[in-house]
């Protein structure tokens, strides 16, 4: 190919740039970024409005009695103790279901599954499961646990349903935590004569633990606020005494907030209770996010030291 014959100096026909365009484009940049800044600020305000509103209205309601007493007078006074206990029980129950299975599943995908279609397939299914709407989990839990397996409306059925719902999140965080551990560390352990299982148990899992725990905490947060899955599997409208077995129904904070704010008998009297319940829910979410944030910071610091 002859490169010289086609050559011509490009300098001969230099572009003449429109005067002032540089100023114009900087101005439009400023405008665009200002719009983005305002929209971002707006969302921050939305969050603060929601939080502020609920904290402002709910703070006066919260008292020791509110947190430790059962509802009374047709749920127009008294506290939300059974709902708090119920939500904590459901969090615990779902954790018992989701954590072991989720972590094992994540370990399997990252450490055992031969590369290729198996991992791809499981990941696809896990992603799909995480996209399944919570109300569908509710339907499914009702059909399988409540009716087919005969658990009835119970903490057991609710925990199982919520456990399955949080499974994808646990699997994904486990998988991601383990994926970031360099292969050299595994090889180092194997080279010392450790078996694969010993390597995973003594080296890989402890290293991935901080991030796995962060994921677990976030999944608990999600469970604490879910309503739709427990509507037909567990939640009781009014169940003032504490549950005594896993086959009992229980109250739960999100469901309590729902019934009190939509189908209350005496809106005037119940509204403060609704604010208080919403605030307790928000506080749980704040604590969970704070915990997860601290875990993450701690983990990042450790990484930096390395």
């Amino acid at each position, binding site marked *: 190919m002859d490169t010289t014959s086609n050559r011509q100096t490009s300098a001969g026909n230099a572009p003449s740039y429109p005067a002032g365009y540089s100023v114009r484009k900087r101005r439009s940049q400023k405008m665009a970024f200002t719009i983005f800044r305002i929209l971002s600020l707006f969302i921050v305000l939305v*969050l603060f409005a929601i939080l502020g509103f609920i904290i402002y209205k709910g703070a006066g309601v919260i008292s020791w009695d509110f947190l430790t007493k059962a509802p009374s007078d047709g749920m127009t006074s008294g506290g939300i103790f059974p709902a708090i206990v119920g939500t904590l029980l459901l969090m615990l129950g779902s954790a018992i279901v989701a954590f072991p299975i989720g972590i094992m599943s994540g370990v399997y995908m990252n450490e055992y599954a031969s590369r290729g279609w198996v991992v791809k397939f499981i990941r696809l299914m896990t992603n799909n499961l995480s996209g399944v709407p919570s*109300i569908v989990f509710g339907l499914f839990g009702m059909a399988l646990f409540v009716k087919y397996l005969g658990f009835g409306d119970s903490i057991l059925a609710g925990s199982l349903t919520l456990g399955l719902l949080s499974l994808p999140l646990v699997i994904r965080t486990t998988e991601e935590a383990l994926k970031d551990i360099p292969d050299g560390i595994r090889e180092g352990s194997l080279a010392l004569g450790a*078996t694969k299982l010993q390597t995973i148990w003594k080296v890989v899992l402890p290293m991935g633990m901080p991030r796995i725990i962060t994921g677990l905490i976030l999944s608990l947060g999600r469970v604490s606020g879910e309503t739709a899955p427990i509507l037909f599997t567990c939640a009781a409208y009014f169940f003032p005494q504490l549950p005594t077995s896993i086959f009992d129904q229980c109250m739960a904070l*999100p469901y309590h907030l729902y019934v009190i704010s939509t189908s209350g008998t005496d809106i005037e009297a119940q509204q403060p209770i609704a604010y208080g319940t919403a605030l307790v*829910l928000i506080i749980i979410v704040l604590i969970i996010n704070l915990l997860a944030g601290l875990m993450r910071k701690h983990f990042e610091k450790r990484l930096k030291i390395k």
Partner: protein
Amino acid sequence: MKRFLEKAVKWLLTASGFVTSAVILLIIGFLFTEGAGLFREHVIEEGYVLALNRENPVKRMNAAQIKAVFDEDVTNWKEIGGPDLPIVTFRLEDADRYFSEEALGKQYENAGALIAGLVADNPGMVAFVPESMIPEGADLNFIEDRTISPGEVFAGAEWFPTATPAPLFGMWPLLAGTLWVSLFAILFALPFGISIAVYMAEVASERVRGFLKPVIELLNGIPSVVYGFFGLIVIVPLLQQVFGLPVGESGLAGSIVLAIMALPTIVTVAEDAMRNCPRSLREASLALGATKWQTVSRVVIPSSMSGIASGVVLGIGRAVGETMAVLMVTGNAAVVPTSILEPLRTIPATIAAELGEAPAGGAHYQSLFLLGVILFFITFFINLCVEFISSRNRAKNR
């Protein structure tokens, strides 16, 4: 022993690896079994018949016509393809308007014969009575009973699951309501979502970003009932005032709440995509004299388009499946929406609101499971789209 343990653990891990797949299969299985049962149910309530006068040639009526007749929206047989005769409806409760208590008998033992006679005497009458009551060999016509057809369910425009004599399971209003409210939610969320993602990925300093990130995470963490509650207490009355609506519970209220809820998904995924845009491309653009904004709008955004699209599609998925918040603020009127300012009802909200009252195993119960199947497949499809978009993107980046 040690080898055995290794084997056992491996087996156990493999089994847990397939749990999510198993759950998906179980969900499909259970929802389908219950949902498909709807098409084995009869149009007319179980154990009842619609009896007509011998002279009346009408043989078939669909559920919508039956409802129209008994609601007295249709008052002449010719409107539904029969003779020119005024329609007289008869329900069992109407018996004492025609007959004395003595005549009917203490246990209504004579009611069957009396009603049969009444229908035989009134050419325009249609009676909704238990099948067992009608004496054998009564000289009457009966509306042909058949099972519910998929057509009237999926294309039916009316959702009256508790109507008698024939409940209507037309899912179109619910489907339309779901899509309508999700569409608006995404329209609201999109400009905000993209702007915030661009701002966080490209404009904000590390400190500002370190502040915005938890804000977005918190928005994601707030339970949907709390959104619903906030919507109900603040947004609904606000909309009612601003637009002068008879009721503030409306599609618009739902869309606004859903937009806030879908936002974190869009922002997180889109921001991730933009931050993954290679530095070399930005530098190339800046080195040519482009401003940062030109670089973002002409290089970064186009090259992260598939990631941004994934975020938006995931956001749509979240909006379509959201239950409680929507249930609390949309007003739940099962009509095909014509304006976003009217109350409407979505599929998830319908399931949540009605399953508690639907007798287990009945047509209503099954129809709600069928809605669950539809919802499941909508979101399943959405997820496959995301999967497709991102796998294509991975292939492109390789």
